[in-house]
């Protein structure tokens, strides 16, 4: 049974100059799990939204979209709302009501169903998703991952035939993201639900998807069985960015044939094809400066008198010119640590020193003048103007201070920029106060691989200018790529800390995919590039 049949679809935004969707035709059958991949701006989101009539963008559209044999324009309002489910990226903003149970019922209320039916469906969905224990809760009390699961459940309760998901895990930490994808995969497997998901980090979903659709500039570059499509795309650097490490390695080595998709396939592939006479890359020794820029000594913090400690006996130090990374799970206290270092929260015990001076002794904002600056997790909190130019004028930004050229965006509205561009704009604003210590809270959240690379480049250049940088992240790959030193925060304490390569080599799980893939075969390999290098050193193929 064909769920969607799209024929010669073209779309141009009302104010756009180029086609956002260009001559697209494809069909999706019942029970298929289809992943759409492509860089930001490739047209994934637009295409997905065109499939859902209620939120279709405004512009010139031609071509045909058939849902179960009928044009979507001809569907009954209520059918269209119920049968095509849509989950968006932002977990917070999709939620409409204040209570979990009410949110679950919201769609069914809109359909005009009576109380008994709503009661049955809501309770059924809540028990299937395992959200009985937070059924009565306020939405505010939920974590990001729970919010996104709630969004999924509130769509599923309407019993859709097909589920469209627009980068649903972009705002989640890796564990919540994996949980979410597992739930969608389970729905697909157990109820023959058709799934079309767009992902700029397809590594999370590739192992569960039946088909892969590669989009570039609004066109379908390849569409078909996941493994075959991946094989077709190897060598295409643009698409490789977001692919699993095994695929990137395979592609980087310019090989043909069966491509490994995940860590275990990658491991087998390496062991079967390459030698390991040389197990390590030559080490580059780096001198650590003696000057301490940030120092935590037995710091304790809690949010209220009667609440438990969030930060307990936290101690670490960051030296001048270092990029220092704090890793850790949700609620481990990473972000709180950063807020303490930025003077936004006050510790009740212990000592925090910034450039050798106690943080309490910085009076009346002197901490933020030529000293410390922080980029918040939500960079949009920094935006106040109608254009990038205005934003930069607000802080008297000097372009020569910042190693990234923002002038091409000068006239754009800050909210119209892509996630990566917003992040860079935020960084530029924060840099205007000429800080010597830069604090970043999850700088890669929601970004695609390309944008991450860009941010990594900018951070390295800032380091070159003599800045010290501390950042918090969930993203082990990003940490391995830019950090000089890493620390693991667990329950408000730093439990391990070290030079990046050593730090990850000593971890078994909390490390990069390449490291997990090469562990015990090669030593201290963290990144795809390094894996390629050592394979070449060992004589290659």
């Amino acid at each position: 049974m064909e769920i969607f049949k799209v024929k010669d679809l073209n779309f141009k935004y009302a104010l756009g100059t180029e086609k956002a969707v260009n001559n697209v035709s494809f069909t999706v059958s019942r029970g298929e799990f289809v992943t759409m991949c492509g860089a930001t701006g490739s047209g994934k989101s637009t295409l997905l939204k065109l499939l859902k009539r209620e939120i279709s963008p405004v512009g010139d559209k031609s071509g045909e979209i058939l849902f179960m044999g009928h044009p979507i324009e001809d569907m009954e309002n209520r059918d269209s709302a119920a049968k095509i489910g849509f989950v968006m990226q932002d977990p917070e903003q999709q939620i409409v009501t204040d209570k979990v149970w009410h949110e679950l019922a919201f769609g069914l209320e809109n359909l005009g169903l009576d109380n008994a039916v709503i009661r049955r469906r809501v309770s059924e969905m809540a028990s299937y998703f395992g959200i009985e224990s937070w059924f009565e809760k306020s939405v505010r009390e939920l974590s990001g991952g729970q919010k996104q699961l709630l969004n999924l459940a509130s769509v599923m309760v309407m019993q859709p035939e097909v589920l469209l998901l627009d980068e649903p895990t972009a705002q989640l930490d890796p564990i919540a993201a994996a949980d979410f994808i597992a739930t969608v995969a389970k729905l697909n497997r157990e109820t023959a639900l058709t799934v079309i998901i767009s992902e700029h980090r397809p590594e999370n979903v590739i192992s569960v998807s039946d088909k892969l659709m590669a989009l570039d500039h609004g066109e379908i570059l390849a569409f078909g069985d996941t493994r075959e499509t991946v094989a077709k795309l190897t060598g295409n650097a643009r698409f490789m960015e977001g692919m699993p490490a095994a695929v990137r390695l395979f592609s980087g080595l310019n090989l043909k044939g069966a491509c490994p998709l995940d860590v275990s396939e990658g491991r087998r592939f390496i062991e079967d094809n390459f030698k390991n006479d040389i197990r390590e890359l030559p080490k580059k020794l780096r001198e650590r400066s003696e000057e301490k820029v940030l120092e935590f000594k037995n710091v304790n913090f809690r949010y209220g008198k009667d609440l438990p400690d969030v930060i307990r006996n936290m101690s670490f130090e960051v030296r001048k010119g270092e990029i220092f990374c704090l890793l850790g799970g949700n609620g481990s206290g990473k972000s709180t640590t950063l807020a303490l270092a930025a003077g936004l929260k006050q510790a009740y015990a212990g000592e925090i020193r910034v450039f050798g001076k106690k943080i309490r002794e910085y009076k009346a904002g002197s901490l933020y003048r030529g000293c410390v600056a922080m980029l918040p997790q939500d960079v949009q909190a920094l935006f106040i103007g109608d254009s990038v130019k205005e934003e930069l004028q607000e802080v008297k930004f000097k372009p020569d201070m910042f190693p990234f050229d923002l002038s091409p965006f000068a006239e754009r509205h800050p909210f119209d920029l892509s996630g990566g561009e917003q992040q860079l704009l935020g960084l530029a604003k924060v840099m205007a106060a000429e800080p010597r210590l830069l604090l970043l809270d999850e700088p890669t959240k929601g970004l695609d691989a390309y944008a991450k690379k860009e941010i990594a480049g900018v951070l390295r250049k800032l380091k070159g200018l003599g800045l010290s940088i501390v950042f918090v992240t969930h993203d082990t790959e990003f940490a391995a790529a830019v950090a000089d030193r890493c620390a693991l925060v667990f329950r408000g304490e730093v439990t391990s800390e070290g030079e990046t390569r050593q730090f990850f080599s000593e971890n078994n799980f909390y490390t990069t995919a390449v490291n997990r893939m090469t562990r015990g075969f090669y030593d201290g390999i963290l990144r795809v590039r390094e894996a390629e290098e050592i394979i070449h050193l060992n004589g290659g193929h």
Partner: protein
Amino acid sequence: MTEYSEYNPIVTFVYFLAVAGLAMFIMNPVLLTVSLLGSVVCFCLKRNKGEKANVLIFVGLFVVLALINPLFHHNGVTVLFLINDNPITLEALAYGVTASVMVISVLFWFRSFSALMTGDKLLYVFGRFSPKFSLMISMALRYIPLFAERSKKIKDARRAMGAYEEENLWDSVKGGVKVFISLTGQSLEKGIITADSMEARGYGSGKRTFFSRYVFKKKDGIALVLILLLTAAVMAAKMAGVLDFSFYPAAEGELFSVWAVGAYACYGVLTLLPLMSEITEREKWRYLRSKI
């Protein structure tokens, strides 16, 4: 067992409306004494464990309210004594005491009311009248705290980039305005997502229904009829003038006529409904448990 709080919210709502409303509009010493006793019993049944009854505060309030009236009103024929040549009369004192019994009892009814009628339940009661209104309230309850959180984030973000000054009043006002501008921009931008999310789930596709987790059971119907009958009886007595009692210039009115006593009894039963339902439920539970 919290049997009483498990009645349908409409029953609970009507009950408190009736029991407190009657106390507020009938200035009859006996009836108000009954109301005070009933409200205290009901409060003790329902009060949360951690919450203290604050007996001292209420006793203090009672004394103050009772004394204010005779100090400022000097009507009445029975003079007790003089303060600064102003007569303090028995009638004014009696009126003060009665009024403060009324105030204290109504306060206690409201304390029980707020303990029992959670936001969900109130929403359910008002949602009956207008599903749109109740959705609006529910969305407001979601978004107001979210905005507060967001403005805190903006303020922190601006402070940590050196753009939020609060050394003098003028700077902090300017800072506040900027936070507000940023918050508005962000919220409008993000509001589009919420609107999409609503429409994607069929908002506006036709007439909405209103889901509630509360069912109107037979026992709710019985309770509601009982409450309305008792209320009607007391109101009828009031209309007929049976419960009239005036304090000035001299106390006048028969407090214990047959009809009046009947009305007190009706009101007494009304105030004790929570206790009675609690006891029957407890007995039922004891009986059921004995069979486990």
